[in-house]
């Protein structure tokens, strides 16, 4: 997503500078003579431009206080603050640069807070779709995945996913929107180590596979910008982590679930490295000439398809709930106990998505966020409408739980293409997502895959559809130089080489998206299937029959979700 900064962002930044210069030409003239007097052969750039320290034995980054990325303006009248007339153009630039990083950091933190709140949305949706006798257990899984997943992400996930972030492919003129401190994320492992002109290893790989810096956020990455990136990526991973708890709800043994919570960061962060951490899928454009490499703006693939596919593997290993299929193998309904709860959760998720997608610019100064928000909105509403149409077409009533699945499907589908498509494209992507989710729920159910909340269909199937839709509907207006790809022939044809789908003239992008889909489906499924089989040997994945019939709340959690209202009707 964000690794590849756009030339547009850089140009708009230059425009701001040009304007600042135009407003106060006197300062520019005053600043000119001393600069000429220094007679430097090359322009002397501040350290935050080059991310290298002027004194090599005293590195400026990691920077635990953030003071090395420009300076903040001090409009204090006590003689110690800024005196506007005495500021040189470089002084002014220091303040603008610091302001730029500040805007981006605040933006990413605030949108990250919204994403964290999506955890509550998942809890409501999944718990509402389960029976009352399993309410406390389902809610508790959605709760504990947050601490367990975060612990693992802190211990090893972040390092694997983003440890070599700095060496990923970037376009000319790129800078780190969260500040130069991200330059410390510079160690990893891959195939084909790159060397510079002097024959020294650069830290980059032709095919990056994992990162290897930042375990436990030790002093090596003790930097303000790294903390912001860590937080944002952590709340994203928790979305993935909580998806399988829905697909496997009402029968998953608590101990096995806890092991899973500590494991989930492994497959997630390896694949995230391939797409977002500068790994081999992101490098597909440079290595194989396929579009801009795998493009997944906010994570239809990295977050949602991965979660849905792990959920599929989990649902296959754990088996259907008792009573889900009759003696002839026909599916029977086990209705969820609280539909308003499902609707509330869906609204919370749709709200959180306004952090999820626009926050993934990693820059509040990237004005494309306007399109990202509108595209996200449009796809969410056409998703719900698409589900309604599909239900009506099949002669069914508008089941609210399916309408909610439809909205979430639209949101999942637009997550990868949200920055690259136009509003009409977004509406179509959401509509297809909403229709797809209805057929997909029936498809899996008819094949004996019991998914109480529709997680496989919402996140898995529509995550893949979102990835493909980038390769179809991306307009080429945004994403110039994404993943370091700038093709002369495209620049000649269109003026800039933005991310472009097959409807807009770049078939190779579509091919790359198919490769990305195959990668997440195969890698995610094999990793998860093996894990669930192996963890089942350590501690059983499924509760015993008596526990399942009674409800997991009492036997597994020791407390009932609704102690005052519980009337169990054992379901055989």
């Amino acid at each position: 997503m964000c690794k590849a900064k756009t030339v547009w962002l850089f140009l708009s930044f230059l425009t701001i500078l040009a304007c600042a210069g135009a407003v106060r030409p006197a300062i520019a003239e005053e600043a000119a003579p001393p600069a000429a007097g220094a007679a430097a052969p090359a322009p002397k750039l501040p350290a935050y431009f080059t991310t290298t320290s002027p004194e090599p034995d005293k590195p400026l980054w990691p920077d635990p206080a953030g003071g090395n990325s420009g300076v903040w303006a001090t409009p204090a009248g006590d003689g110690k603050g800024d005196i506007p007339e005495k500021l040189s153009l470089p002084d002014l630039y220091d303040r603008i640069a610091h302001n730029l990083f500040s805007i981006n950091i605040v933006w990413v933190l605030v949108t990250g807070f919204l994403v964290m709140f999506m955890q509550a949305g998942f809890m409501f949706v999944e718990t509402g779709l389960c029976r009352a006798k399993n309410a406390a257990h389902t809610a508790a899984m959605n709760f504990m995945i947050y601490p367990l997943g975060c612990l693992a992400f802190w211990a090893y996930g972040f390092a694997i996913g983003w440890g070599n972030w700095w060496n990923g492919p970037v376009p000319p003129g790129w800078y780190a929107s969260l500040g130069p401190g991200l330059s410390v994320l510079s160690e990893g492992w891959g195939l084909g180590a790159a060397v510079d002109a002097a024959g020294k290893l650069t830290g980059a790989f032709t095919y990056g596979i994992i990162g290897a810096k930042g375990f436990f956020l030790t002093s090596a990455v003790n930097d303000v910008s790294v903390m912001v990136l860590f937080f944002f990526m952590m709340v994203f991973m928790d979305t993935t982590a909580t998806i399988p708890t829905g697909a496997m709800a009402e029968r998953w043994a608590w101990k096995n679930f806890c092991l899973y919570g500590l494991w989930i960061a492994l497959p997630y962060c390896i694949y995230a490295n391939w797409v977002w951490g500068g790994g081999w899928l992101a490098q597909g454009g440079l290595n194989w000439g396929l579009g801009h490499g795998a493009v997944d703006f906010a994570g239809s693939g990295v977050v949602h398809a991965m979660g849905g596919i792990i959920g599929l593997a989990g649902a296959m290993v754990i088996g259907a709930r008792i009573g889900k299929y009759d003696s002839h193998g026909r599916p029977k309904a086990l209705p969820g106990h609280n539909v308003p709860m499902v609707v509330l959760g869906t609204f919370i998720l749709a709200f959180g998505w306004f952090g999820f997608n626009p926050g993934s610019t990693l820059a509040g100064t990237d004005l494309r966020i306007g399109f990202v928000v509108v595209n996200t909105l449009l796809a969410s509403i056409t998703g719900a409408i698409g589900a309604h149409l599909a239900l009506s077409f099949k002669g069914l009533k508008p089941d609210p739980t399916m309408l909610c699945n439809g909205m979430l499907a639209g949101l999942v589908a637009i997550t990868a293409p949200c920055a690259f498509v136009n509003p009409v494209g977004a509406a179509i992507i959401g509509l297809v997502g909403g229709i797809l989710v209805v057929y997909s729920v029936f498809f899996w159910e008819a094949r004996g895959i019991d998914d109480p909340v529709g997680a496989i269909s919402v996140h898995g199937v529509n995550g893949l559809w979102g990835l493909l839709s980038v390769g179809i509907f991306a307009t080429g207006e945004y994403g110039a130089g994404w993943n370091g790809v700038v093709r002369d022939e495209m620049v000649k044809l269109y003026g800039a080489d933005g991310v472009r789908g097959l409807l807009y003239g770049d078939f190779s992008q579509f091919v790359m998206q198919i490769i990305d889909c195959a990668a997440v489906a195969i890698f995610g499924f094999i990793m998860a299937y093996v894990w669930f089989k192996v963890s089942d040997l350590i501690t059983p994945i499924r509760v015993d029959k008596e526990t399942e019939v009674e409800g997991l709340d009492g036997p597994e959690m020791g407390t009932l979700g609704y102690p005052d209202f519980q009337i169990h009707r054992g379901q055989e």
Partner: protein
Amino acid sequence: MKQIEAIIKPFKLDEVKEALSKVGIQGMTISEVKGFGRQKGHTELYRGAEYSVDFLPKVKIQILVPDEKASQVVDAILQTARTGKIGDGKIFVIPVEEVIRIRTGEKGPDAI
């Protein structure tokens, strides 16, 4: 003394209660119950899959009356609880051996 036990459709409760007040009934006990008779249950669809609702929600009213009042009360219930459609419920009239008011220890019709 008689106990009149009536199983009715839940939405008819207010109407029945009004009618019983009019014929001078001063107390009653109701409970929410589930069951089926000739009406049977029905099937519903949830996320495209069928499930059957075998037991339908009903309200059960219990009233104690002196023998002479029983037919009046039964009539009142019959008139107000009837919709004419299947599932209207049933009325049972049961003889009662003894009634005791706990607070005072009164027995028989005085305790009603």
